[in-house]
């Protein structure tokens, strides 16, 4: 589908957000009293706390489709057969998602629609419109030009905004995106030649952020199995198995399933995020652990995201958002380690 182009003035954004929030569930970057910015549901009254000049939000959009924990079904009777599905899939509009995070959703789509179709995830994705806000500046902590997931996307978005001076040039990339523009047509004008030119210039300029590594080279090094063992030893000695880097990751999707009873008596089968940096993730009854060591755990994550995912899906499992580097209590730096792998 050809991209359609529109324009919206930055001044009109609060009006648009107010209009969305009055009709639909709007999720956008919200700043709070300590200066943290998170993607959160916005009510019509809170539109003024939406911020659009941020590097990235602390959380990624993952949790709106694959939440930290959720009930899958509720047991209603004495037998395990007496169960109701309890999940909810609401129509949501995610506004101001960075390209790396939109790309992460594209990755998760592949994971959750593979051999097993994950109904919960896919229904939520169907009912969502994701409005991507491209990046016009290079940031120190992230590296989308190395993973091919930004600073602007070529595909895989519903709508992408390109900031140009006092306006955004708006690209639609899916039927859901086009329908959204139709719903809120009064805020958008068709783009003129000058808008298109300015947007193309902005995209070209942003693309000049130099890549920090070559993902093909990293793939080669990992798949050749020749990365020096010192790297894995270093990661293992630093990793505290807290799971923070994996929970905060926009593409990590692992979960564990358990039965839960709440104090109010509701009995449910639930799933919650799990992480491959926990020993219990792979340890079997009797204590045997096929991964064996901290080094094995470290290596598995790098291999999975930077090698196996490319084989499986044709894309990298890392979208270059850099969140994991900001979350580690052992100062494991994923980006620096990838560069070490490339140079090994």
């Amino acid at each position, binding site marked *: 589908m050809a991209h359609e182009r529109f324009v919206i003035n930055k001044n009109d954004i609060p009006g648009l957000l107010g209009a969305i929030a009055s009709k639909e569930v709007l999720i956008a970057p919200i700043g709070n009293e*300590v200066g943290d910015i998170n993607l959160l549901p916005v009510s019509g009254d809170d539109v003024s706390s939406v911020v659009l000049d941020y590097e990235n939000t602390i959380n990624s959009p993952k*949790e709106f489709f694959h939440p930290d924990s959720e009930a899958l079904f509720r047991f209603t009777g004495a037998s395990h057969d007496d169960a109701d599905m309890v999940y909810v899939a609401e129509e949501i509009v995610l506004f101001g998602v960075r390209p790396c995070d939109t790309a992460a959703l594209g990755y998760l789509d592949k994971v959750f629609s593979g051999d097993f179709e994950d109904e919960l995830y896919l229904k939520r994705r169907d009912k969502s419109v994701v409005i991507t806000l491209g990046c016009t500046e290079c940031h120190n902590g992230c590296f989308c030009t190395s993973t091919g997931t930004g600073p602007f996307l070529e595909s895989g978005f519903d709508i992408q905004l390109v900031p140009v001076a006092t306006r955004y040039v708006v690209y639609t990339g899916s039927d859901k995106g086009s329908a959204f523009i139709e719903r809120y047509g009064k805020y958008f004008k068709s783009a003129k030649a000058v808008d298109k030119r300015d947007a193309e210039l902005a995209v070209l300029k942003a693309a000049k952020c130099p890549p920090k590594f070559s993902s093909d080279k990293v793939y080669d090094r990992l798949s050749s199995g020749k990365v020096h063992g010192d790297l894995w030893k270093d990661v293992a000695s630093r990793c*505290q198995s807290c799971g923070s880097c994996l929970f905060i990751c926009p593409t990590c999707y692992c979960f564990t399933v358990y039965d839960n009873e*709440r104090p109010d008596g509701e009995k449910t089968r639930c799933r919650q995020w799990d992480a491959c940096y926990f020993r219990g993730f792979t340890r079997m009854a009797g204590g045997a652990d096929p991964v064996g060591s901290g080094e094995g755990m470290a290596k598995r994550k790098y291999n999975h995201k930077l090698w196996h995912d490319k084989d499986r899906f044709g894309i990298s499992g890392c979208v270059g958002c850099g969140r994991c580097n900001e979350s580690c209590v052992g100062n494991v730096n994923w980006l620096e380690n990838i560069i070490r792998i490339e140079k090994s």
Partner: protein
Amino acid sequence: MKLNYVLTTCPYCGVGCNFYLKVKDGHMIGVAPSRNTHIAKGRICVKGQNAWAIVEHKDRIKNPLIKKGGKFIESSWIEALGLVTSKFKDIKRRHGADSLGVWSSARCTNELNYLAQKFARAVLGTNNVDHCARTCHSPTVAGLIRSFGSGAMTNSIDEIKDAKCIFAIGSNATEAHPLIGWRVRSAKDKGAKLIVCDPRRIDMAEYADIHIQHYPGTDIALLNCLMNIIISESLHDLSFIKNRTEGFDDMLKAVSRYTPAYAEKITGVPKGLLIKAARIYATESPASIIYTLGITEHTVGTENVMSIANLAMLTGNVGKPSSGVNPLRGQNNVQGACDMAALPDVYPGYQRVDDPAIQKKFEKAWGVALSPRPGLTVTDQLIEARKGSIKALYMIGEDPLRSDPNINHVREALEKLEFLVVNEIFMSPTAEMADVILPGASFAEKTGTFTNSDRRVQLVRKAIEPIGNSRPDWKIVCDIASKMGYPFDYKDTAEIMDELAPLTPIYGGISHKRIEKAGLQWPCLDKGHPGTQYLHKDKFSRGLGKFHAIEDKPPAEVPDKDYPFILSTGRMRFHYNVGTMTRRTNLLNREFPRMFVEINPLDADELGIRKGGECIVATRRGSLRMRARVTSGIKRKVLWMSFHYTEAPANLLTNDAFCPISRIGEYKACAASVEAVV
């Protein structure tokens, strides 16, 4: 979609990280990090990451429980509170106010702790109020007050990353205080020197410049020796000693016999390593000492702390950034519970109960006559209960039947009580013994403040309504006090803070309003005071810092023919203290679901104990069966185990011999035997 991110303070250790509780449609679903708060800086440890999971656990106590015919029966609040107040009144009438005791809690808010001690003092009429700091950092409070005049971490947590030398003794920060472990790692990554003193090769020891693996209970010999070396090599800070301290000559005399050769014999550490460590600590400035319960949980706990203070003063490492003496507090609000005077000898802000002017101030504020007699510590309340002179206890969020040393002794004491009331969120071995259990609300269901290890008062915010019919603990204390005829009328916890701040000079400028964006570190004397990043700048709280002459003493129990090992106990990253919360958390318990004992491979070989094999560890107080974790990380003839497991409670084995000054038990060293189960 209703999804809220509620910014709050972690309920686990004393580091005091802020994070968001994710609340979806009124239920907890997870936790998210905060980047712009002072301690967390975008990070969460594994316990914090999972802190949401216990809030809506099925085991939560939802209604008051009254024991009738040996069984707990759910009751109404009216009935339970009626029973509690009539029993308290009756026992007070028959046996006097000092037959009652209150155990407040380092797990609860400052506001609860303030009310609990006010309840003991103004309503019951006794100073018998204390809490579990007695069994963790009471030697810190006692020791640092004697040395410096203030019993708290001297510097700030975030300064640790900028130290040039970190001297960690009896502290396993990566396990027990992960966000401080992160700062130690960061300092090391920036080139700092790291000295780790621990009988086990803990995580920090793996990347330390020097690992001093001394025997448990030989800290004073070790520290005196380091001072001996520093002085004999003239590496001490003469001008700091002259201008800022007193008592140097007495200390000098005491350390003179602790030559490296002499200390090697006591500590089991090669003298060359001691010399190297002393030189590094004395020359890499600023040097920060961090210590934890490996120092305090000894019969010489207070002397251990004062020895550390000696070492810091000797090298001028007090009163400047990234230096100091930094006890890492173990519980979310153990600092605050001490500040709020859940202690038997002081009013809030460490103002002594036997000072007539202070007594008068509180009598005026609270409108009742108060006792000038210091009360009993928890250690002594148990001793007196066993003797029969303590008749009733009110315990808030404490489980001494798992957390106190020699739990058989605790059981005997609790059995002797006429009446035991427990506030709890989960059933615990101690709660099982109660006559009445009052269901409390967890950290996620109430608003208040915790004070972390670096004296930072931070907000805890309510995320969901209390579970079932549980109530915030501060409200429960208000209900009991009011029913006993002394109205505790507070509309919220902010109002409690507003009452206590003017009475507590170090909290003078603190209010909930002021700490909405960021916590404040005490001393914070008035509304305009910015708080205090580090203590003792230019002048110690007591004027001059005081050196103490300290001689080493062996633990109360040393290895012998029958019990040839030294048993030490401690904590693991995935569990927290007696495991009430972490054992109920899927992802945490999955990591370490079973009790184990660490033993050196050479010892294991001699005894025929296999890797992962069953063995029996025994002391004079009891024995436990568990698996062996055979590791070269532990010194020969030393055993180590955690105390997280109710099914194998390590404190059945530990020694309740206690430090005569601070009354802490000797959890870290007792004589034990171990044998393989064949």
